[in-house]
Structure formats: structure tokens, C-alpha cells
């Protein structure tokens, strides 16, 4: 590969950082105009630069760009460089991040208009972009990890943006901790790679695992460790618990971080490390299984959620599950494809939801909505398009990417199977169903709003609707750009199991049917005031409770991990260890000293007889000792 040196990448990364510093340090003094300018201008500039780099690539230009900023640490032959790396995969990611990011910045100017911490908000947002770009552009796992933890930080800050509410602050903490758990695995994976391969540069690592002899380490072990990190970041079972709570943050944040970009970092990581996973069938199997399971369970939960953002959150988890399924079956291109389309329609959905909430002046419960279609038409139409897209209605973006995934789940030579296909299909059905349920409950039917709420309903400002329209447009046409083909060189699609070639059209038909079935189901259940849905709910109360309770995973963690940890720390370590054992021993020794001192003092009675006796016995003993051998 002929790599061309450049400095643009550093610039791309640093622009948002500059935004963060400017807004963070000066924002409050220089006022909203300045903040908006910096907060939106720099990401857009970054986007422009990304496009520029993208154009440098491609058939005409170089195969990839490398930008070595500086050496972070070196000792002997150990060396860690801060370097950036720009190939087609990074390009796709960078464009999504900067592009969608910029859009959401613009949207935010409207959404956060009245917030008193306007500057802080944009500072955080820029900070996020900075780290996210480090993540997708980093050449070595180290740089990636810096971004990886950094975006975690940004999401922590943004989830807890309204920190007066302890719930929100706690949600931020939960997100950070859960990510940290994943990161521990990531770190171990990194260490293992470094110890065995001797470098952290991802291109080198891939090469090393491709080469023969392979490194003296099981690729699957490395793969699973890294995947554990990905689980944390991309909210896969068992580390998915943080994402729903993360909805506590401002809605644009949910759109940007918890739908479009950050949560897909795990997908990016696995795709980027495909060199390892191609040689790690066990790890790939695990990924496929986990991904699919996540997709399915999240979808089931989403069916019963009543908070508009929670529904979207679970759908995000579910869609991420789809991506991991694709990764698991070796269809890295398909995964990235879905990542890309998902970025559009899920961002659109979240922003639409934001617009709805904005319109409802803060109300998020879809049971208190309905009939909004006429009141906020732009929001409705964009939301509808995005819904259709995620449901996989052709020819919208979601259809193509999801179809690819379902297809490879069945036919991939790298572990595709009928079972995967079946579950994926069911999940797709559920997806379409709950999405249309959401649409219905929100926009159709009779209004269930309180009067004054209804009175306040209003369409959002153009800064928001404009963004919605753009994203809806992307969700519509985005699918026609075939990312897998574009990435063919970096991420070749897996060979199709022989004998399956001619099932392709069947699968396409199936997925179309599934999508429409979901639509129909939603219409049938919720079209007439959700009476039928109610009946179903009463029919299976337990099931409903379990789903509402999200399978009680949080509770289980609390009971089996949180409480025992605290108990041990409190009872065993603090009470017994520190207080009784260690300090106890000390105090006992001190008491011993004092006691002896008291005894000695009592011996000194002041009676000369006693003193003389001490002398007498002393002399006698001394004589005895010195003469005992004579």
C-alpha cells in the first residue's frame, strides 16, 4: 500500500478541540453568537477537511493517508506514536461523524436555544467530536483507546448535562462505569496484542495476523477481549444496561452519541481489526451470537416501552446487534453499511423525537400523545420516512443494509446459518412492528394530550426541521451508495456458501414481506385506539411485566455484583480488616506498652527495702550467671 503523508488529519482532529477550548474557556463571556459560530463552524470545517481527504483517496488518489503527529512515549525499542490513518473505512466513519455531527450541531442551536448552559453544551459536543475523530482516525490502538475513553467521558458529561437532577447524573456515571468495565477488557486485549505482536498500530497488527507465521497467541482470545470492550461501547449484552438510561441527556446528544456515532465505535473497532477476526472463528461466532441475542431481546423490550426515547434507545441497541451479527458472520462491509444507514435514520428519528418533545414542551410518554401528524407535519413526515427506513421498507436506506445482513446471516461462508437467519428475520419483524407502533401512537389516532399541552404544541424552528429534512433525505437515498462494494478492498465480503446463491431473491422478498408485516401488525393493533394491544397485554401479564422490567438485568447486576462488592468492602475490608485486624493489633500493642509501664511504675513503690532487695537479687543473679559454668 502506498501511504501518503499529510497533516490534514491532525487538523481535522484538532478543529473540534479548538472549539471545545474556545467555548469552554471563553464561551460564557463572548455570548451565544460566538458560541454558535465556533460550535457549529469548526465541525463543519472539519467535515470539509474530511471531504478533502476523502477526495484524495479513491481510485485516482492514494490508497491511504498517514499522519504521524508525534511520539507519545518511547523507551528502548518500545515506542508509541500518536499517528492518524485514513483509509476508506476511516473515511466513511469520519464523514459520518463530521457530517451527522455538524447537522446535529446545527439542530442543537435551535433545540438548546434557551438553555442557560448553552456554551457548556457546545463545548462538550465539540469535545465529543474531537475524541470521536481520534477514535476513527487513530492509527494505533492506543490513539483509538484515547478516543474510546474520551467519547465515554463526553457522553458522561452530556448525559449528566442537567446535573441538578441526580437521576441524570447517576445515568452518566452508570454509562461511564459500564464502559470502563468494557475498557478493562479492551486494555487486556491491547496488552496481549502488544506483548505478542510488539506494536499497537492496527494496520501492522492486521498484517501480522494475516502473515505466517501468525503471532504466538490465539486470535480468538484477543478478539474476544477486544469485543468485550466493544460490548461496553456499543451496548451489547451483557453491558447494554447503560444505553437506555443514557437517554437522560439532551435529545440531540442521544441522536449524535447514542445513536449515530459513539455507540457504533464497537462496530468500527471489530471491522477495523478484521484481520484478527478473520482468523478467529470462535470469536466471530461469539460476536454473531451476542449480537443477534442483543438485537432480539432489545427488540422485544422496545415493543412495550412507552417513553419515545426509550423505544428508540432499545431500537438502537437492537440495530447495533444487527451490525454485530454481520460482523460475526464476517460481513464487515455489511455491518459498516448498516452503521452508515443507521446513522442517518436513527439520527433522524431521535431528532424527530426531539422535535416532538420540543413541541410537547418536554413530554416524552407516547401514551400522552397521538394525532400529532397534522400539528407538526414536517416532523411527522421526516419521522415517518426514517421509521420506514429502519423498518426496512424499500427503497429506503435501511432496507438495503438490513437485507445485506439478513442475507449474510443465512449465506455467509463464515458461519452463516438458517438459525441466525430465522432469529434475524423475527427481530426484523419486531423492529418494523415496534417502530410503526411508535409512529402510530405518536402521530395518529385521537390526541391523548391534556388541553394546555395541546394548546402549546407547535412546529420546531427551521434550524431543527431543516436538519430533519436533510437527514430524511439521506435516509431515503443513502442506501443506493453501496458501502460494502466501496469497502471491498479493506473489508472483502465473505464468500457465499455454495448452493445458497439462488436464495438471494427469496431473502430480499422475505425482508420486504417482514417489513410490511410489521407495518400491518402495528396498524392492526394500534389503528383503533390500541384496544387490541390492550387485550394482548392482559392476555400475557407476566410476559408484559418481564418486558417492561427489561428482563430485570439491572436488578440482577445490583443484587449480584453491586451489593456484594459494597458488603465486602464495608464489612470485610473496612470493619474487619482495617478496624479490627490492623488497627486492632496496633492498639493492642499500644495497650500492652501502657500496661507494662503501669506495672513498672507499681514496682517503683518507693520502699527502700524493695530497692535493696532488687540489688540483692541482682547481685546474686549476676554472680550465678557468671559462675554457673565454673
Amino acid at each position, binding site marked *: 500500500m502506498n501511504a501518503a503523508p499529510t497533516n490534514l488529519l491532525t487538523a481535522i482532529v484538532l478543529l473540534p478541540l479548538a472549539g471545545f477550548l474556545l467555548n469552554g474557556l471563553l464561551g460564557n463571556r463572548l455570548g451565544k453568537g460566538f458560541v454558535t459560530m465556533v460550535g457549529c463552524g469548526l465541525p463543519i470545517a472539519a467535515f470539509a477537511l474530511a471531504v478533502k481527504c476523502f477526495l484524495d483517496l479513491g481510485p485516482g488518489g492514494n490508497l491511504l493517508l498517514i499522519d504521524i503527529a508525534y511520539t507519545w512515549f518511547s523507551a528502548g525499542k518500545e515506542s508509541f506514536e500518536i499517528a492518524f490513518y485514513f483509509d476508506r473505512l476511516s473515511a466513511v466513519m469520519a464523514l459520518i461523524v463530521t457530517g451527522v455531527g455538524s447537522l446535529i450541531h446545527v439542530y442543537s442551536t435551535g433545540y438548546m436555544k434557551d438553555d442557560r448552559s448553552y456554551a457548556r453544551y457546545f463545548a462538550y459536543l465539540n469535545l465529543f467530536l474531537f475524541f470521536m475523530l481520534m477514535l476513527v482516525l487513530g492509527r494505533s490502538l492506543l490513539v483509538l483507546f484515547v478516543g474510546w475513553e474520551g467519547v465515554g467521558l463526553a457522553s458522561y458529561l452530556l448525559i449528566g448535562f442537567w446535573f441538578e437532577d441526580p437521576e441524570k447524573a447517576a445515568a452518566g456515571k452508570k454509562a*461511564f*462505569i459500564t464502559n470502563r468495565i468494557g475498557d478493562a477488557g479492551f486494555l487486556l486485549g491491547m*496488552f496481549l496484542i502488544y506483548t505478542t505482536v510488539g506494536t499497537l498500530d492496527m494496520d501492522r497488527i492486521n498484517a501480522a495476523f494475516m502473515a505466517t507465521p501468525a503471532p504466538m497467541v490465539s486470535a480468538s482470545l484477543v478478539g474476544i477481549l477486544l469485543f468485550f470492550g466493544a460490548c461496553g461501547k456499543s451496548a451489547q449484552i451483557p453491558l447494554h444496561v447503560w444505553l437506555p438510561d443514557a437517554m437522560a441527556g439532551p435529545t440531540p446528544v442521544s441522536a449524535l452519541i447514542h445513536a449515530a456515532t459513539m455507540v457504533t465505535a464497537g462496530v468500527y473497532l471489530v471491522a477495523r481489526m478484521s484481520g484478527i477476526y478473520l482468523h478467529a472463528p470462535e470469536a466471530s461466532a461469539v460476536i454473531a451470537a451476542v449480537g443477534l441475542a442483543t438485537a432480539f431481546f432489545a427488540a422485544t423490550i422496545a415493543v412495550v416501552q412507552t417513553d419515545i426515547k426509550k423505544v428508540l434507545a432499545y431500537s438502537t441497541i437492537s440495530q447495533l446487534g444487527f451490525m454485530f451479527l454481520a460482523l460475526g458472520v464476517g460481513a464487515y462491509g455489511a455491518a459498516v453499511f448498516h452503521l452508515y444507514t443507521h446513522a442517518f435514520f436513527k439520527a433522524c428519528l431521535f431528532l424527530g423525537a426531539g422535535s416532538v418533545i420540543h413541541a410537547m414542551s418536554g413530554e416524552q410518554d407516547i401514551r400522552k400523545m397521538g394525532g400529532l401528524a397534522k400539528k407538526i407535519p414536517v416532523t411527522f413526515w421526516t419521522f415517518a420516512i426514517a421509521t420506514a427506513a429502519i423498518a426496512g421498507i424499500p427503497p429506503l436506506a435501511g432496507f438495503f443494509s438490513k437485507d445485506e445482513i439478513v442475507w449474510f446471516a443465512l449465506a455467509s461462508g463464515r458461519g452463516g446459518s438458517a438459525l441466525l437467519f430465522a432469529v434475524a428475520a423475527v427481530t426484523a419483524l419486531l423492529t418494523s412492528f415496534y417502530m410503526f407502533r411508535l409512529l402510530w401512537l405518536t402521530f395518529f389516532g385521537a390526541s391523548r394530550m391534556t388541553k394546555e399541552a395541546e394548546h402549546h404544541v407547535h412546529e420546531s424552528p427551521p434550524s431543527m426541521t431543516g436538519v430533519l429534512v436533510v437527514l430524511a433525505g439521506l435516509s431515503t437515498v443513502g442506501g443506493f451508495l453501496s458501502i460494502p462494494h466501496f469497502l471491498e478492498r479493506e473489508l472483502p465480503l465473505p464468500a457465499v456458501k455454495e448452493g445458497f446463491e439462488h436464495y438471494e431473491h427469496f431473502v430480499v422478498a422475505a425482508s420486504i414481506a417482514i417489513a410490511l408485516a410489521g407495518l400491518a401488525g402495528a396498524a392492526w393493533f394500534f389503528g383503533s385506539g390500541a384496544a387490541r394491544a390492550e387485550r394482548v397485554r392482559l392476555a400475557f401479564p407476566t410476559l408484559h411485566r418481564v418486558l417492561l422490567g427489561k428482563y430485570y438485568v439491572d436488578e440482577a447486576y445490583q443484587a449480584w455484583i453491586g451489593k456484594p462488592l459494597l458488603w465486602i468492602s464495608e464489612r470485610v475490608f*473496612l470493619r474487619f480488616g482495617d478496624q479490627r485486624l490492623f488497627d486492632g493489633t496496633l492498639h493492642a500493642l499500644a495497650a500492652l506498652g501502657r500496661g507494662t509501664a503501669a506495672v513498672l511504675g507499681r514496682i517503683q513503690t518507693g520502699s527502700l527495702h524493695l530497692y535493696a532487695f532488687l540489688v540483692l537479687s541482682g547481685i546474686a543473679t549476676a554472680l550465678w550467671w557468671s559462675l554457673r559454668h565454673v
Partner: protein
Amino acid sequence: MSDASLLNLVLFLPVIGMALLLRVPTSREDMIRGLTFWVMVVQFALCVWLYTRFDAADPGLQFATRLPWIADWGVYYLIGLDGYNVLLVLLTAFLGPLVVASAFTAVTRDVKLFYSMVLLIQFTMVGTFLAQDLFLFYLFWEAMLIPMFLIIGIWGGERRIYATLKFVLYTAFGSILMLAALIYLVVSLQASSGITSFAFADLYRAGAELPLDVQVILLAAFGLSFAIKVPMVPLHTWLPDAHVEAPTAGSVILAGVLLKMGTYGFMKLGFPLFPQATQLLAPVIATLAVISIVYGACLALVQTDIKKIIAYSSISHLGYVMLGLTTFNLLGIQGAVMQMVSHGLVAGGLFLMVGMVYERCHTRDLAAYGGLARILPVYSVFFVILTLASIGLPTTSGFTGEFLVLLGAFAAGWPQLGQGDALPLTLAVVAVSGVVLGALYMLWLAQRLLFGATRAPHQPFADLNGRERAILAAIVVAVFALGLFPNEPMHKTELAARHYQRLVTAAPAKAPMAALSHSHEGGNPDEGTFPR
């Protein structure tokens, strides 16, 4: 003025400062404060100058002074900078002015005595790091107790007497055994080679020649005294009390520098003096280190006193240092050094911040606080930054240290797994879990202190003033500098790390360690002949 004499000036500036303080009438408190502050500033400036002049490529002792002191015992006044101490001296000098400035409003009783004691302890700490002669080292090491005893005991909290006595008696016990051990070491050197010398360089040779069992005993004696200072579980119980009772300045000095004495002692003396014994005991020490990491973190989790949380976090963080020192590979050692400095900055900064809020609310009980972010925005920003540094978030110095240490530990453990010894790797893995626990308690602290509904005694009060902002800004800048560009300082310590590594692994005791470390050293075993 030659650099060597500058180094002496750096060492003795605090004493000069004390002499000047004596001339200042007790009533002129501001003058006292100013004088002390400027003395510290000058000291720091000189240190920076020397740091820039410090030649990373010179393995030997730099800016050294060597004067006969107790001639017929072979005791010399021998000080100098080398890779071992250069960063720590700089750190000490850096924290000096900040400590002084932080006490401007906090300390109002016996101001003169207080600042004399601060200068005194500064003197002893710098001396401990600079000393290259065991007798001199021990002198400074022990002398350090006295000012600390007074600082905690006079300006401390309710249970200050208990705390300070606990601190001094605990530490003194270790030092007594160390004294016996060092005398034995010197005597045996005299017996074996006929030369009477306390110079580290000579003792390194003497120690390595001792029979293993003797080495183990001596290492235990030295190690006990160092481990108490670090402190390593189970010798740590003095630390929380001392920290909680000490005045802010005391806590900062304690966390910022004093604890490093222990790890520095291990790195400069304990391990290199007795290589075979170290090889033998390395698993034990590493295990204790990891226990400290986890134990400290768990205890920090259940504290309600802000200072205690940070105190226990110190135990946890210094566990990383010890772990790094026992990896015997360059990454781990360098990481340990970095972690020392980083912890000095971060923990010091956190204690300063606790002090600042304590000055305003007069309580350290976490339950009394909440939502400070609303009333103290600037404070909160700094607090969050330092919290993240303490968690070891990338781009902060904490990450540099932890990452290198853990990587080193893993790199040391993995090959041994091949030889069927799973312990080192297990330790590394468990240590990684400390990363999670660290996030757990620090974020818990931050959330309860800064977020949620605003709640604090004696509000409303003013946000940080210029002085406080300056103090914290200095620390934060340093934290990020070490997080983003650790390479330059690390190069200054690299030769020392190699020297340490060579001394400790020279012994044939444990093949895997040695082999690994050489492979990581880059196969040039005999570079750097230290210190002459």
C-alpha cells in the same frame, strides 16, 4: 555559579528561608507568608533550570557534590541528580509554592512556626531525594518525621494527636529496623572489601554479594520501612488517619511527596541493593501491591469522608507503582516513575481542592454536600479534571502511569504463563480491574459532591479566587503535559530505569524475568554505569 553549587542551593534554600523567617517578627504574618512563598518559587525556578540542564544521555550522577563529612566512617556529603530523583525533586519543588500558597488563608495560628516547618520538611524531602550516601539519606529520611509530626499535631483536626503519633511511631518503627539493616550492610561491606563507605554505588556491590538469606532479611528490614511509607497493605492504617487529621498543606505534602519516598526508596535502595532477594520476593511484593490496589479502591468506595476517599485512593494508586517496580521491564519501571509523579500531582491537587471546600464549609462529610457544580462552577471544572486524572483517563498523567505499569505487568506476566507460572499474569489482570474500581469511587465522589440538588453548609459562598485558580491551573497544566507529552521527562529517567532493571535482574535467580526484561531492554545490557 556552577550547576553543582546551584543544586546545593536548591537543597539549602529552605534552610536559608527559615533563617530569614527567624528575623521576621511573629506579628508580620503576611511578610512571613510572602517570604516563604518566594523562597519556594525561587527553589522551583532553580529546579526547572537544573532540569533543563539535566543531560538525559549521561548515566552518571549530575551536578554532584562530594565532601567528606564523617571521615573515619566513610560518610560523605554526597548529593546529585540522576534519573531516579530528577523528576521527584522537580515535583517536590513544584508542589512547594502551591502548598505555601494554599495555606495563606487556611493557617492562622502560629503562622511563623507553620511556615518554618513547611520549609523544614521541604528541605528534608529534597534532601532525601538528592542524597547519594546512605547515611545522609537516612538522616533526611528520619528528620522528615519531626516537621510532619508538628504539622499534623499542631494544625490538625480533632484527633490530630492520635493521628500524628500513629504516623510517627508507625514510620519510626520501620526506620529503626532499616537503621539496623543499613549498619549491617555497611559493616559487611567493610568486612568483605575493606572499604568503609555509605555511597549507594559501593553498597550496590556489597548487597549483591551477600548470601541470599541475609539479603532476604535485610530487604525485609529496608522494605518494611519503605512499605510503611508507601504505604502497602497491611501497613497502611496510619495513612487515612494522618490524611484526615492533617491540615490541607500537610495532606498535600504527605500525598504529594512523602508517600513517594517509600516507592523511591524501593527503587533506589531496597530492590537494587538486594537483587537476589528481590527476585525471590518479587511475587510476594507484587501480590501485596495488587492487594493494595484493590483493597484501597474497595475501601475508598465505602468512605463518607472526602479526605479518606482520596487517602485510600492513594493507597490504591501507589499499588500501581509497586507493581510497576516489580515487573523489572522498562515499561513497568518507567510507568512506575510516571505514576509516582502523576499521583503526586493528582492526589496533591485533590487534597488542595478538599481543603478549599473545607475552608468554606468546615466539614469533610460527603453527606453534607451536593450540587456544588451550580454554586462553584470553576471549582467543579477543576475537580472533575483532577477526578478524571485520578481515574487515569487518557490525555492525563494518570493514564500514562497506569497504562505503562499495567502494560509492563502484563508483558512481564505473559511469558511466564508459558513457563507455567500464572501468578504474574493473574496479578496484572486483577490490577486492571483496579481501573474500574477507581472510576467507581472517584465518580461516586464527584457525583455526590458536585451533582444533584445543590446542598452545602454555610452557603452561599464565593467560587475560587484568583490564588486558588492559579494553584489548580498550575497542577492541571502539569497533569495534561505529562499525559500528552510524557516522552521528554521519561527520557530523563530512562537510563535510571535501565540501571535499576540491570541491577535487579542481573542476578541469575529468575530466568524468565531476566530474559524478558532483556528482550524489552533492547539488548544492550551494559549501558549506563550509575552513579559515580
